[in-house]
């Protein structure tokens, strides 16, 4: 069954760490332009799903298809070039680079300029550097981070660091954006701002987004479909309202 509208499909995706089935038979199907939620209690295997999708871990069983192409077992850098970008649950910016340089690193594969050209064709190098800078600045403007462009990433306020991670991921020009608890540690007003940003990115870039989130209100506010993980397995999936009223889901969360 081939369908161009399915950006991501996983088939029986599984990984085992020793005796622990951290992810067990997970079948996702995410349509183009969709904002899909992945929720579940602590240790349910959500981040592990991201690590599988981005090639950090190799699945012990199952397949991953990006726009119909099998990317199972490919290396992280290659998967990124094929169109999956992510943020991290614990922020992993390049702290010794400035805000704009972080985004420029994300742009690395978007503007061709070889190291030989950098050394031996200076004018060409300067032109591509300008282009890096301008495209990075444009992205920072989208995320209202332009005024911080010359800050070291480490010196950015926490909420802005989370936004910068999204901007850096977007710089790699993904087809699918994976956000791992982007609202973690944010206060309510920052969370609201973030939700607006996610909605904006989705609309402006037509981005397909897979969102891990703990905050039920945030999820129910913006995701149309959900998968709930519990102990690595799918507890429920489907339309947000139905899933969230599912008694098994309620129990899993209350029992947390």
């Amino acid at each position, binding site marked *: 069954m081939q369908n161009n509208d399915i950006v991501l499909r996983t088939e029986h995706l599984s990984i085992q760490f020793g005796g622990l089935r951290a992810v067990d038979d997970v079948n996702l199907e995410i349509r183009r332009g969709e904002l899909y939620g992945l929720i579940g209690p602590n240790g349910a295997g959500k981040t592990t799903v991201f690590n599988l999708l981005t090639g950090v871990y190799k699945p012990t069983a199952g397949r991953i298809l990006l726009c119909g192409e099998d990317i199972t077992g490919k290396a*992280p850098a290659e998967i990124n070039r094929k169109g999956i970008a*992510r943020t991290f649950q614990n922020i992993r910016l*390049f702290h010794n*680079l400035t805000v704009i340089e972080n985004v420029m*690193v994300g742009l*690395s594969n978007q503007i061709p300029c070889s*190291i030989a050209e*950098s050394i031996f064709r200076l004018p060409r190098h300067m032109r591509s*550097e300008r282009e890096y800078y301008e495209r990075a600045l444009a992205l920072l403007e989208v995320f209202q981070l332009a005024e911080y462009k010359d800050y070291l990433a480490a010196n950015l306020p926490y909420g802005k660091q989370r936004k910068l991670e999204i901007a850096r991921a977007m710089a790699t020009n993904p087809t699918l954006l994976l956000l791992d608890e982007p609202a973690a540690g944010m206060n309510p007003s920052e969370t609201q701002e973030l939700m607006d940003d996610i909605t904006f990115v989705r609309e402006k870039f037509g981005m397909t987004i897979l969102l891990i989130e703990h905050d039920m209100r945030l999820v129910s506010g913006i995701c149309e479909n959900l998968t709930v993980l519990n102990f690595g397995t799918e507890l429920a999936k489907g339309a947000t309202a139905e899933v969230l009223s599912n008694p098994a889901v309620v129990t899993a969360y209350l029992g947390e």
Partner: protein
Amino acid sequence: MNFLSVLISGLGAGATYAIIAIGYTMVYGIAKMLNFAHGDIIMVGGYAMFVTLALVGHPVAAVAAAILAAVLVCVLMGVSVERFAYKPLRGASPLAVLITAIGVSYLLQSLAQIIFGSASKMLSGLQIAGHVMLGTLRINYVTLVTLAVTVVLMVALTLFIKYSKTGRAMVAVSEDRDAALLMGINTNAIIAITFAIGSALAAIAAYLMLAKGASLANTLGAMPGIKAFTAAVIGGIGSLPGAVLGGILLGVVESLSYSIPALAPFTDAVEFGILIVILLVKPAGLLGKARREKV
């Protein structure tokens, strides 16, 4: 002995250490390994110059050709060592990598001895003689050349790291290799480029040492390698300005110690003593950052 001239010749020696120390510190920062064979790349450069001088007739062209050949051969050697000895060990224990590096060091030294014999050679064609007098202050031309070359290289390297996509990727990889991978950075290429830069600098260091009158033998890079490694640790391994600071500091201390008759025989001990004292006070080195553990 004039104190100022001792200081200036110390700066010259320190500049050479700095150039070598950068090779250690960049590889450590980006590939997270101690490349103990780095000093022997200097020796490889020395022999590349020896062969080139024998082949090219015209004296000035010979020097230029020798430097160019040394840079090419060193880059090729450094990148090959990384590709065939270290890359297969990515993810192996640091101890395995360290032992391999020591093995590579012995391998290069032995090969040089087999090919070129054990007698040391003087490359008079490379030597820079003469000096200028500023009043009573005597400055050798070779010191001036060394300082000028070092400044130019440091500026170029700093600009490259700050204002090129490869340079930014190097900083990114040194900070978080996995996150860089997930941003699509080809970290293997970045590591190879780092070895190439370090090896090119080793070739220049070889030229500066021979220009100063060092004799060429298969151990040419051994002691300078250890000293430069010491310099990199003093400055804070992984830190580029640290490597320069550590190199200059070590060169000046060395020169001062040589100039005091009572200390002169113990100069090496003085230098390594300084390393110990600095590490006791600042375990991460002068400009090094204490490591944050990642969770």
